[in-house]
């Protein structure tokens, strides 16, 4: 009895969380007539997959895609490299002021982005970076507090004996980091890479503030521009929305076991 109730609830809630996706997908493959039909069409007569191609060419989405890919790839590489490096530094060395600096790092996660937004804009303006992709890429190369924290927690679970053995064999700190810890950290790096990818791919405010020339737009800006220009073109907007959702979804399914195994939670406790 209780079990049936639990299943009922689980199914109902899952439907609530998944239905909007399916609705968008169905909208994307409809015809104009089916779109405005009432009652709504839940299963289109034929699925018009060509809608995706048509929508894509209405605005320079190839350019937007290219910009998004550049930002996401370059910033993810930087994020993985820097965050793991810094995490190793905090996890494996004792040095004066370490704990204090680490507290500052944790506290920095609490600073609202709004406070930094204006001076960052002026700073990037001063550097001549406005309307380039640099503001969206370069900061990632200096690591992000949350990811550093997560990776540090992970490194702490790796036995110190491994480091000591390597040191006995004459390895220096860089070699211990790059040859031993980086490979061992793989699961945590997949997690960090996935999270950073999703953040960078979905980011709207950063591109909105730092870019103003259409040729520099990322996909998120492209979609919002598209919404503004073709407000009535629901089918095309749905198609582009689905395309925009695809990479994070694919990545999510690939990285699922790392995201779902509770590593996020266990790193929070520490």
């Amino acid at each position, binding site marked *: 009895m209780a079990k049936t109730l639990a299943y009922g609830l689980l199914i109902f809630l899952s439907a609530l969380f998944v239905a909007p996706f399916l609705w968008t997908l169905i909208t994307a493959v409809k015809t104009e007539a089916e*779109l405005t039909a009432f009652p709504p069409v839940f299963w289109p007569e034929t699925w018009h997959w060509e809608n995706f191609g048509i929508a894509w060419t209405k605005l320079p989405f190839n350019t937007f895609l290219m910009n998004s890919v550049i930002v996401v790839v370059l910033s993810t590489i930087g994020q993985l490299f820097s965050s793991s490096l810094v995490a190793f530094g905090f996890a494996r060395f004792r040095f004066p002021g370490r704990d204090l600096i680490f507290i500052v790092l944790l506290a920095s996660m609490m600073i*609202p982005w709004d406070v930094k937004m204006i001076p960052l804009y002026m700073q990037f303006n001063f550097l001549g970076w406005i309307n380039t992709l640099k503001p969206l890429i370069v900061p990632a190369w200096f690591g992000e507090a949350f990811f550093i924290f997560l990776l540090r927690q992970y490194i702490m679970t790796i036995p110190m004996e491994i480091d000591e053995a390597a040191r006995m064999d004459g390895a220096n700190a860089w070699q211990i980091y790059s040859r031993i810890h980086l490979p061992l950290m793989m699961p945590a790096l997949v997690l960090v890479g996935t999270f950073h990818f999703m953040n960078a791919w979905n980011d709207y405010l950063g591109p909105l503030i730092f870019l103003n020339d259409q040729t520099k737009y990322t996909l*998120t800006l492209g979609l919002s521009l598209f919404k503004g220009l073709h407000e009535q073109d629901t089918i095309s907007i749905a198609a582009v929305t689905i395309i925009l959702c695809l990479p994070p979804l694919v990545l999510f399914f690939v990285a699922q076991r790392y995201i779902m195994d509770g590593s996020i939670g266990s790193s929070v406790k520490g």
Partner: protein
Amino acid sequence: MADVRSSRRRRSGPGLAPWLFISPWIFGFVVFTAGPLAFSLYMSFFDWPIVGEREFVGIDNYLTMVMEDPQFWESLWITTKFALLFVPFNIVLSFLMAMLLNLGLKGTGVFRTAFYLPSVISGVALVTIWSWIYSSRYGLLNYLLGLTGIEGPNWLGDPSFAVVAIVIASLWGLGGTMLILLSGLQAIPKELYEAARISGVPGWAQTLFITLPMLGPMLLFAIITSIISAFQQLTIALLLTKGGPLGSTYFFAMYIYDNAFKYFDMGYAAAMSWIMFALVLAMSLLVLKSSAAWVHYEGEVKGKDGANG
């Protein structure tokens, strides 16, 4: 012997290496966080147009805000209203869903994935999807409500429903909070429940006196991050309602954004952003302080005192 010891000491001393490892973050923190932070505080004491002369005005920006700017109070109230709705729902729903997933039923993995799925996409795509669901004409939501005989409101066009609409759209992304609570639930030792069952403690009491107190640290983390994200809410409102209708979803963060990038009043915007920072910090500290009464870190279970919070 002495030689060996000194050479060992030399080798084991940390020297420059740790600083080299953490230097990217230190540099990034100074250039992209601390520097901008200090600069924004400095700016907040100026009348600072984006072009032209800037003028030192002391605390005038703060005074104007508090004494003469009804929009400041209005947007602050809208943001507070949003947070008061969003935070409790986000925590309670995440908790209930995590509890459901923690029952160990078959197929849990599929349900867990379904709940987390919307968190994977966000921003523009999420907002686009919700703008159809809420649409008063072809909207899915009002159609479904219509089937049950309820006439749905004009969600995004009616000031009394717009904030609620944004809350619901935001709650769709509760998967992250849910995962955190779920991993907390899974870390609670099963023996506690067994002992309780043997002593005849009913299920609801187990939840109240074992689960909630043991989950304390995770709940605390979830509440604080929810508050922070509620107060920074901008993307969804910016795209879904653009602040309307009638300014009913004109969030605090949106007013900061407009002051900076629409009215080019950088000093005023900077002052407002510091008010937001102070508020978020104060609330987080308040929650943290109050948590002493209901969070237990040593895995020890207290009686009533612990569960009341």
